């Protein structure tokens, strides 16, 4: 299995948050009953992207183990379906909850792996995990 570099993780994060934000904007347009929450989730995804990229760029150093912190990580395990699969509100909520769970797992795992190797960058992954868990809680409240 290929090694995963920090740069690849950051690109993956960027794509994940862009697609997640677009997904929630789609839900905002389709489901007025949850629009306020979905919009806030979209904004949250944009915040996470900004936070992680900024922290990476402000912390990265040639002395950190950027090439060797994510050995054997299976990125594919964290891929989610990010196009809306159903017009049914409850099914859309379930899809969103599944997305949040996977995203939180992704950030939790990369935070754990890089904890003592990537300094503050690992802390930003931990923050992202927390924000994704908050997202999940909000969606579960909507789902009742």
């Amino acid at each position, binding site marked *: 299995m*290929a*090694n*995963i*570099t*920090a*740069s*690849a993780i950051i*690109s993956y994060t960027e794509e994940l948050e862009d697609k997640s934000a677009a997904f929630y904007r789609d839900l905002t347009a389709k489901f007025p009953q949850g629009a306020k929450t979905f919009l806030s989730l979209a904004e949250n995804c944009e915040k996470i992207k900004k936070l992680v990229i900024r922290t*990476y*760029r*402000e*912390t*990265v*150093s*040639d*002395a*950190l*183990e*950027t*090439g*060797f*912190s994510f*050995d054997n990580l299976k990125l594919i395990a964290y891929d989610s379906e990010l196009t809306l699969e159903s017009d049914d509100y409850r099914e859309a909520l379930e899809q969103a909850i599944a997305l949040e769970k996977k995203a939180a797992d992704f950030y939790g795992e990369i935070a754990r792996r890089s904890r*003592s*190797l990537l300094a503050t960058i690992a802390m930003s992954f931990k923050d992202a995990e927390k924000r994704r868990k908050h997202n999940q809680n909000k969606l579960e409240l909507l789902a009742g």
Partner: protein
Amino acid sequence: MRILEEPIREPVEIKNLIDGDWKASKGEYKDIVNPATGKVIGTVPISTKEELNQAVESAQEAFPLWRRTPPVARARCLFRLKNLLEENFEELSRIQTMEHGKTIDESRGETRRGIENVEVATGIPTLMQGDFLEDIASGIDEYLIRQPLGTFGIITPFNFPFMIGLWFAPYAVATGNCVVLKPSSEDPFCQTKIAELAEEAGIPPGVWNVVHGGRTVVKEMLDHKDIQGICFVGSTPVARDVVVKGCGATGKRVIAQGGAKNFAIVMPDADLDRTIAACMTSFYGNAGQRCLANTNLVIVGEGLSKKELEDFYKKVVERFVTAAKRIQIGYGLDESIQMGPLRDVGKKENVVRYIEKGIEEGAKLILDGRQFDLVGDWPRDAFLGPTVFEDVTLDMTIAQEEIFGPVANMMKAQNLAEAIDMVHENPFGNAVTVFTGNGDWARRVRYQVECGNIGINVGIAAPMAFFPFSGMKDSFYGTLHGQGKEAIRFFTESKVVIERWF
């Protein structure tokens, strides 16, 4: 995995910046080659003595006004430069990968380290303050003021084309001096781009000059009567010449950082997962082309029997080799890549000669970097894989000399005292790293080892911008170091005033 877009699309003719004017040189031009793709990405002039003299003259002319510019105004120029560097962060990083070969993570790391020096230098209104003591004798006061000296020459190496110029130039300029910077002619893009941004930030013509070139420019810098001091980073033989034949003869101030042969010491209680990850970065990062790279790995059996040391040694070596074998080699703009090429074919050939020498002198080659898998369809010319030697002894050439490539030597010591003796037998004194969970062992290394930069569970002991980049023995010539407060002292004269009023 995706390959990031290249910021240099067409070959660029690099120019000199003299007195705020970008000028083509009258000297010959040579090609700048992307070591990963083999493509020519630009041409750089080998400037003439006259061009260097023009740059120094323009610096001398700019100096009186620049030194009178209030420190807070100079700091604001540097704040603007810092913002411009941030705005161009990604482009600058990708340029480094294109001109040097390092991976994109390494380039971004270098960009950050460079910018941090600009950040520190923005603190000049505080950093440059002097001292004052009332009543050194009754009714008499004494104070110290720091004043700039004039023009400084900065000569930078190929291995960190962005960062090393910024170890010096921001501090020189912040303290009111002017600079003439000569980047490595092998990868001059970044320093050229930084100078463009410095100009955009409002640093006046003549304060920040760039003259590209080779030995002629360096010799003229060393001999020039109007250059007050030299900052040099490169190999030890040249650093010694810069000090002895150059600055010594002309009475210049000097910071001359030379080569290195760094040791990593692995104690029996080291966290091996993290130690191996740190070693991969330390031994093979930047393809081994850095003065803080570790090259000799000493596995220590403190508190272990001979048999236990043998077992521990085998375990560490096996883990090290397994990790080294998995390193992905290719073009640094490919995000899956962990190690790029050497800067050029000649440098690779030099490393290969060391590998051959190691075999000839009896070291056991257990991972041969001459055989490697390359990710992507690139010419193999400048690439080399990770190499590991076992049974290396201190008398071997590969254990003594700076290889500046991805070669690791496995050694063992029965106890920490023996490991420290091994470090001390080497003439260099740049860096040592110890991997351990034991505070006493770590302290013994920190306290006893004669090296300028000590890493404790840190593979690359690179000082941050607010600390000096240290070095001892044959790794450093001079008194004050680059970066932080020492750089402020280097670039200023301490004037003492004793004052009495009748």
